[in-house]
């Protein structure tokens, strides 16, 4: 599903490399945690996968499509297949919750369709937003203002937007960094459960090892832009999904 082969990436043309000859292979449906301290290169890796940062050398392929050098329509078509959620405040506060959720569909809509949705959303479109919000347990907030959401609700709406996008790979960049431990557990549980149900590949960066080993099948440690370890983990979450353990 995702292949990163000997990749070197920097923040800008003249800057020093943040990712230094990194290689990894992630299979369809796998749930992978990328573990590492701040500045290790986790966000840089995600931004390179979704084509926001140019790749200096090496290749990245997603679902058989090479990311290197993609531009315009082709890049947008690829991004449609890669969902992204982050620790940053990345919803548009002034939009309603359902508008933010359905922004996930923009990649498959025409510009006129997008314009019409803002003016007059169809019942079927609202039902799609409702379904996505139902999956993250926030259906009551469908018509709420995004600015009224709490931190945890905010993250759930971002996940609902990613679900509407119907991605093959979901990149979650420290999605629980600003949440308390209980809420962090709930969000990771939700993400892993949704990945299992919807069959997408989940790659999630974290800096808490306990959360990584608890929820993910595979834990990759990155330090200083290079892979330090790559281990298979038997997470409690997967045991639960196959009906073993509490």
């Amino acid at each position, binding site marked *: 599903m995702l292949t990163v082969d000997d990749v070197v990436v920097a923040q800008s043309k003249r800057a020093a490399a943040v990712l230094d000859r990194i290689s990894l292979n992630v299979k369809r449906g796998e749930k992978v945690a990328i573990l590492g301290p701040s500045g290790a290169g986790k966000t840089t890796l995600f931004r390179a996968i979704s084509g926001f940062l140019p790749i200096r050398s090496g290749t990245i392929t997603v679902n058989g499509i090479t990311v290197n050098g993609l531009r315009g329509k082709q890049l947008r078509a690829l991004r449609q297949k890669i969902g992204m959620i*982050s620790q940053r405040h990345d919803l548009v506060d002034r*939009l309603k919750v359902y508008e933010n959720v359905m922004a996930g569909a923009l990649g498959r809509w025409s510009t006129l369709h*997008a314009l019409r949705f803002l003016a007059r959303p169809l019942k079927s479109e609202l039902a799609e937003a409702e379904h996505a919000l139902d999956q993250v347990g926030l259906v009551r907030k469908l018509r709420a203002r995004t600015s009224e959401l709490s931190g945890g609700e905010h993250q759930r709406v971002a996940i609902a937007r990613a679900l509407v996008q119907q991605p093959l790979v979901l990149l979650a960049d420290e999605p629980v960094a600003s949440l308390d431990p209980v809420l962090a557990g709930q969000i990771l549980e939700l993400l892993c459960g949704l990945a299992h149900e919807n069959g997408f590949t989940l790659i999630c960066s974290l800096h808490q090892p306990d959360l990584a080993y608890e929820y993910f099948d595979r834990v990759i440690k990155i330090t200083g832009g290079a892979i330090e370890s790559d281990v298979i983990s038997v997470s409690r979450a997967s045991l639960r999904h196959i009906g073993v353990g509490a």
Partner: protein
Amino acid sequence: MHPWESFISGLRQWSPPDHTLSYLWSVRTPLFETLEIAAAAMLIAISLGLLLGLYIGARLPGARALYVLLTSFRAIPDLTLALLCVIAIGLGPAAGVVALAMFYSAAIGKIFADLFASAERAPVEALESTGANRIMVALYGLLPLRRQDLLTSGAYEFESAIRASVVVGFVGAGGIGTELVGYLNQTDYHHATPLILLLVLLIALVDGLCWLVRRHPRLVLPLIVLGAAAAFANRPQTLYFRHAIKTFAAMWPPRLAPNELASLPKLLGETLEMAFGGTLLAIVCALPLGVAAARNISPAFVSFPVRRLLEGLRAIPEMVWGLILLGFAVWGPSMGILALGLHSAGALGKLYAESLENVNPEPILALAATGASRIAITSFGLLPLAFGPVAVQSLFRLEWNMRAATIVGMIGAGGIGGALFYAQQQSFYHPMIAYIIITWALIMIVDRISGRLRSRWGIVEIDK
């Protein structure tokens, strides 16, 4: 005559204003013309400016070149554009509409582009990561993220457009401006005074309307209808494009005669003298007035009247101050300095007061906790903390006054504006276009230096 005597005789000329009902009733036509110019021009400018801003904000092909073009176009003062439009389109409000629509489209396009460029990055990138195209990112991200700021700057520009719609009348583009200049040319000050008072009242009303629009954005809708009706009413004349293009073509190439070239340094010197002198005068007056108007420093019985005084000074455009000063027998660059200084003192005083009120309260509370007096808190806390915004606003004012200095020249303050107006009146189009290019270059240079200073001081915020 002693200056004091000329002041008294000046005052006598202006009062009493003609307040007969028949005269006040006759003013309705130019008043509606002014409103028509402002509403039609602003409808075109805001729609076009929004499109231009979104085009640049969405980084569509050629966006950078378009941004440079808008920045350069803004360096041509509105009245200079009106002069050109009067020649190309003919006397009347249509010329005013076209001139203001062009000027404010560029101004609003640039401001909106700056607002979009400084929108929060995270939500925009999140939208891009869904595979949305740039237009969708603009619709779902840039527009809603910046809606409030767009309304605030749109309202501010509308207020400026009302003042400008009077000013463009001075060169024959219709409305109260043309009427006012007519009376002043005949030294009929009794009829001019009600028009000036009407202008101040109109600007106060527009201020109130803009405040309402910011609170209830839906009120924009009736304004759109009014603007569309006004633009439609001026449609036949504005469509004289072929005539306009032919006239512009006949103005080329720009050329100055040897005697005009020789007097150029003097003209440029006078213009710079007015811009710098006016700004300095404004800063000197606005600092104490700004402190007096700041509600967190001065008691209400001081701040309230000072605020009204500042509003009054600001409501009268530089050109109208210039005309009033002519009535007091003041002309030449000193008239320019006074006219620019009086209007800018009002504008800067209000902005200084707002900057002082917006200072971070924590360091001030810490100072107050030491038992410091009000004067000590102001001098060691508020003034140093507000230095950044005050410096930026003063630099923006200098840029503004550079444009205004070329404009007041047209009514007797001299400088390059005077030469430009003379060339237009005499139909000397080759020197006229040369003076326009020189004015543009001068303004671009001052803008560039001021921009450099602002970025060197690390302050790049847009002043409102």
